[in-house]
């Protein structure tokens, strides 16, 4: 009886231990080594910086309260609650307000939105996603193009 039990359990236990080492440890570590050495940007969360200071990930929404910025949709309206993406209509509908708050001409803002949408379209090979704008990327573009208007945010964080 003892030996037949051992006969059943011994290969099963050894199989499990080996697979833990191979699939639970070696595999993710190897993927990490490959990622960190060849694709460091993506592997670390596609972080974006302004003047060398990391301000977030371009894949994640962040809260914008200032009327000078584009805003994401409310967290409860999406599934993840952290996606920075809005439709073209939503982006264009915010332009008037931003223009009023900053004095940036509407056609400049429209261009920024359309350029971002075009970039996203290209990144998705035109066919694999509907048109969308990335709120964080739009706002980064604003900060980059109009540093004097957005100087209060550039100096945030005691830089």
């Amino acid at each position, binding site marked *: 009886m003892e030996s037949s039990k051992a006969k059943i359990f011994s*290969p099963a236990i050894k199989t499990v231990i080996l697979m833990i080492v*191979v699939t639970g440890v070696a595999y993710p570590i190897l993927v990490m080594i490959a990622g960190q050495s060849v694709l460091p940007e993506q592997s670390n969360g596609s972080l974006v910086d302004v003047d060398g200071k990391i301000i977030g990930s371009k894949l994640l929404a962040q*809260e914008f309260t200032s009327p000078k910025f584009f805003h994401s949709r409310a967290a409860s309206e*999406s599934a993840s609650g952290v996606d920075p993406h809005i439709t073209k209509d939503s982006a264009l509908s915010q332009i008037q307000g931003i223009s009023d708050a900053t004095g940036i001409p509407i056609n400049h803002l429209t261009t920024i939105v359309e350029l971002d949408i075009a970039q996203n379209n290209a990144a998705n090979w035109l066919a694999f*996603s509907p048109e969308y704008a990335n709120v964080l990327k739009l706002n980064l573009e604003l900060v980059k193009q109009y540093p004097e208007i957005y100087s209060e*945010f550039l100096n*945030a964080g005691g830089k």
Partner: protein
Amino acid sequence: MEVSVTYVDLIQLLVVLLGSLSLAVIFGKYLARMIIYEKRPLEKTLGRVENEFYKLIGIDKYQQMTWRQYFLALVVTNFIAACFLFGVLVFQDLLPLSPKSGLSLDLAFHTAASFVTNTDIQHYVGDKQLSIFSQMVGLTFMMFVAPATGISAAFAFIRGFIRKDFGLGNFYVDFIRVIITFLLPVAFVSAILLMVLGVPQTLESSITVQTLEGAPQTITMGPIASLESIKEFGSNGGGFFGSNSAHPFENPNGLSNIFEIILMLSIPFSFPIAYAHLLGKGRGVSILVVMITGFGILLIVGLLTQSGPAGLETRFGSFGSVLFNISSIATNTGAANSALIGMSPDAIISLLVAMFIQAIPGADGTGMMTMIVYVVLTLFIVGLMVGKTPEFMSMKINSRDIKLAVFVFLIHPAIILIPTVIAYTNGDAQQLLGSTTPMTFTQVLYEYTSSASNNGSDYLGASADTPFWNLSTALVVIVGRYVPLGLMLAIAGSFTIKDRKEVVEPIRTQGPVFTSVLLIMTFLLTVLTFFPFLIMGPFSI
């Protein structure tokens, strides 16, 4: 609301079908070679590596198992793996890599049962409650064990039909070969591709940054790419994040969305192609056609009304979300790239029907096995109608085979409907969801359907982290996995010793007529069983 499917949507669908079927042609041939131990590409190297594993484990690779031995080895291996995961989750506070407090015993039991059975229902929020160690050594490991178990069982099952006394194989040999020479290399390459598209892979659990407006933001990360690739490829579906494939780190853009859909569909579509190599081209192609047509019907039903935009991710849109979710639920992966609440009632009907059927195309391995059970049932019913003794692959189907097949079929409604009724009579459903409406009834029905079919998608999520829901759904996932697997292996055990007559099949198991009958039977049998409950649930929303 008006539904518009644009030409861009059709391109997505076409790429998904072409991509998954191209992979299925390659993988199908490879699986067929593994099933009958034929030479694979790089056979010498692969064989040497495998032999080292067999030596370490101490098994004789030539030793054949009976269906009982095969099933026992499968259950024991799964049990030990589940005990390991249970321990990791309970004691994760003592383990390295961003320790978090251990899960409660009932939640850990539910999670271990859910992941070992290829279900991956999650009554926890991964990014908040699990350590990097648990996600990596606990869950990623289990995401190889679960599909390898299903694929191995399907290998043994198919061997039962090949020729008399071919043998069902050796569980450990199949299990190790499937992981080392199939799942692992594909998962590795897929993980790299996912990283190219933006999925992170780091041992850092989180970083805190100051946003553009100066507010602190904590960004949760981890070894996501290595989990994500096997999550989709292995029909697992358990997300790194609570919001699963809706989270931008699991599914950053339209390309990753399409790639993940292709990964989910590729193994389930490979099996009919392997079957075509081994048991006749016509038979395999017929089953593939039934699977693809059935999948198409689900998609059409799911697109009848517009889903979203609330509850959906803007970057996927309505079509990209419905396509992902139907692919995921039809393959019993159970991942979701939107909230289920964002899906239209028609889409929910489609998802439920997919889980009732479990075979269009179904999960890795078990989808094919379930489809063959439908073939046997169809032959029996058609045989009764035309007055011929039912035969399959020139073998007589006897009454025991039919009883086993019927039992496989009936266990499914039993373990969905009985627990649903108990949840309502006990008051646990009302306690969790408030007053009973078609919507809340749908959520309860969905929870047990997803558990019984080892799917993993659900409405309830972490809100169902109570002893009643954890224990009841854990029991359902265990019965829903191992009882049908045991019964189906018993059917294979019965067929492998049968005499084959070299005569024309009385009812051909290929060609357009059989394909149509099988497709109709598959939908008819399941829809008839569940129709009253669909009426009470999603039809009334």
